[in-house]
């Protein structure tokens, strides 16, 4: 942030043109950049053998960063519950997560705060911020999110809402329908924001030919919930769309389905090489042009930021390599919340 802060003070002109206060635009850019560079560092670690698997969010920053800035962060039903997917690093960074913790999970160190070296990178868990554990099975978060949302339903007195996020292909799972059905029950509606990140692929399978609807958002209509589609490569449009959706869910205590059209800049995961994909729009690049155009930041400032974060992440990754791996016996920790009393070992 500091570097960005040094930039010229916001000008109303800029605000008018980017559609967001200058300071906020710079803040969003700063976080998008951090998030992008984090993913690039993770990919490099993977390619250097410092991690077994990479999956993440290059191409979703323009949406995930505004989401992280707009959530009501905190613990308990008075704040927002987040059921995210494995491409949500931008949201976590915007909420204040330390990028180094993602490097720890990448290297599956004992110091990994999200899973203690047990889970793949991108599988966040931050109880103090209501970020429930990201699960690998696609779409189950939609069946689970209705539960935190019910704890916040109209009449419960809770101020927070529940946000659940997944991909486009995953909406074919019954769990997506479960969330639509359970959140829209007449008289029993749930304060649930359903977010579909549509990158038009499920691993190698294109959207076309797999769905009966041109847009996943259409599926919300039968359930009487408002729906919207936003250019998830545009942080300004995303910011406004998320804000509008959140306002509706917060005040109405009813569900809302938001579909964001996004890019998949590094393909599905390390399993498909994690190399740059041609023909996919890069939201960071595009926003940089916009910031330059509107004189909100100079190329030099942006280059400096990039350099600074790149160096920081490089140093951090070297630090992480020196951190301890989990002990073999650690597999027996955290099986039960009271005592680790295991059948066959009681």
């Amino acid at each position, binding site marked *: 942030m500091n570097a960005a802060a040094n930039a010229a003070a916001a000008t109303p002109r800029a605000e008018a043109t980017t559609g967001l206060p200058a300071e906020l635009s710079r803040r969003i850019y700063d976080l998008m950049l951090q998030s992008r560079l984090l993913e690039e560092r993770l990919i490099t670690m993977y390619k250097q053998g410092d991690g077994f698997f990479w999956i993440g969010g290059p191409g979703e920053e323009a949406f995930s960063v505004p989401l992280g800035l707009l959530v009501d962060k905190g613990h*308990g*039903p008075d704040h927002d*519950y987040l059921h995210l997917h494995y491409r949500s690093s931008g949201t976590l960074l915007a909420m204040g997560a330390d990028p180094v913790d993602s490097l720890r999970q990448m290297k599956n160190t004992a110091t*990994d*705060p*999200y*899973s*203690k070296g*047990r*889970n793949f990178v991108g*599988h966040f*868990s*931050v*109880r103090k911020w209501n970020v*429930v*554990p990201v*699960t690998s*099975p696609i779409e*189950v978060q*939609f*069946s*689970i*999110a*209705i*539960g*935190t*949302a*019910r*704890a*916040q339903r109209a009449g419960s007195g809770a101020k927070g809402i*529940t946000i659940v996020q997944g991909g486009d292909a995953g909406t074919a799972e*019954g*769990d997506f329908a*479960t969330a639509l*059905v*359970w959140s829209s*029950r007449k008289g029993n509606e749930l304060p649930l924001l359903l977010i579909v990140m549509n990158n038009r692929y499920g691993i190698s399978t294109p959207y076309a030919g797999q769905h009966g609807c041109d847009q996943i958002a259409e599926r919300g209509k039968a359930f009487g919930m408002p729906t919207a589609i936003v250019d998830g490569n545009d942080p300004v449009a995303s910011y406004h769309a998320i804000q509008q959706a959140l306002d509706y869910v917060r005040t109405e205590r009813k569900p809302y389905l938001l579909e964001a059209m996004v890019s998949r800049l590094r393909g599905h995961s390390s399993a498909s090489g994690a190399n740059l994909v041609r023909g996919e729009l890069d939201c960071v690049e595009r926003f940089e042009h916009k910031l330059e155009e509107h004189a909100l930041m100079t190329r030099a400032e942006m280059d400096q930021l990039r350099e600074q974060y790149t160096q920081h992440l490089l140093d951090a990754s070297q630090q992480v390599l020196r951190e301890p791996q989990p002990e073999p016996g650690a597999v027996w*920790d*955290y*099986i*039960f*919340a*009271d005592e680790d*009393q*295991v*059948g*066959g070992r*009681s």
Partner: protein
Amino acid sequence: MATMIQAIRMALHVGESRLGVTEIFGEDVGPPLGGVFTGTQGLETTWNTPLDERGIVGMAIGLALAGRRPVAEIQFCDYAFNTIDLLKIAGNTYWASGGDWNVPMVLMTPVGAGIRGSIYHSHSFDATATRLPGWKIVMPSNPRDAYGLLLSAITDPNPVMFLKPKALLRLKGKPGEEIPGAPADDRQLASMIDAPPADKRAGWKPTWPALEDLFIPIGQARIARPGTRVSVLTYGRSVPMCIAAADELAAEGIDVEVVDLRSLHPYDWDAITESVRKTNRVVCVNEDTEITNFGEHLIRRLVEELFYELHAPPRLVAGGHLPGIGLADNLEMASVPHKEGIKAVIAEVARHEP
């Protein structure tokens, strides 16, 4: 004396009135029905869910994550087999998050045969349940244990599965199986807590007795019938069958000890080994299908640890490895253990000459 289903209802009342239970839900769990077995009649926090078991389990997990204390029901365990992935998540969330999020939920579901329920109202769930690391699994065999185990389940910080032996739900407790605080007289209890017929139910409210706490620790077995010649390791619906078999065998001079595990996970290894060390002979009895059966785990561990103390080959009496339990009497009887068969195996083991 209370029936098991009344005991469950009373435990849920205690749960919602003073142990922090925030909601009790499932298909037809709320008014007007109050559960297909009447187990949730007259309670304050019940509600009817959509017909979607995945939603029910997901809802319970989510509520637990949000700090509530949900008790969810799957109407019949036969309909829980599309939720195993979610049950695994309930069981692995605490572990996968390195201790960040625990999932304090109770899942109740009726299990087993005995009511001519045909293919989809006769499944057992114990073998499947014991394959869900991170879950505690309990299964009562009488009203008092049902009450005490459910109170413990409700206050446990982990996911606990409460398996309801369908065939025993309407049976009254025997002496020693009293629910502390519940009137001993059946008719009096029924008039207080059993809902009137559907047409007279509108506006009805139960009068709950002054129920006392009873926490039967999860992981603690009960010697249902002390004996010296053979140890029978069993639970749920099979317990009364094994006791009846044992009583008949007593007449033949065979003194059988029946160990009611009550908790399938964690199970009471100390009680099991103590009994087997005493009798040197063991029979495991349960209704689930025989291939990859929880009783086989107990036998495997017993032969690993107590091989030379066994004076006869351990035996398993379980359900046949069949695609289903048929409706006709003959079919159901031929598919799951019954007193005569249990008796014969126990006698064989007892009379076995090393």
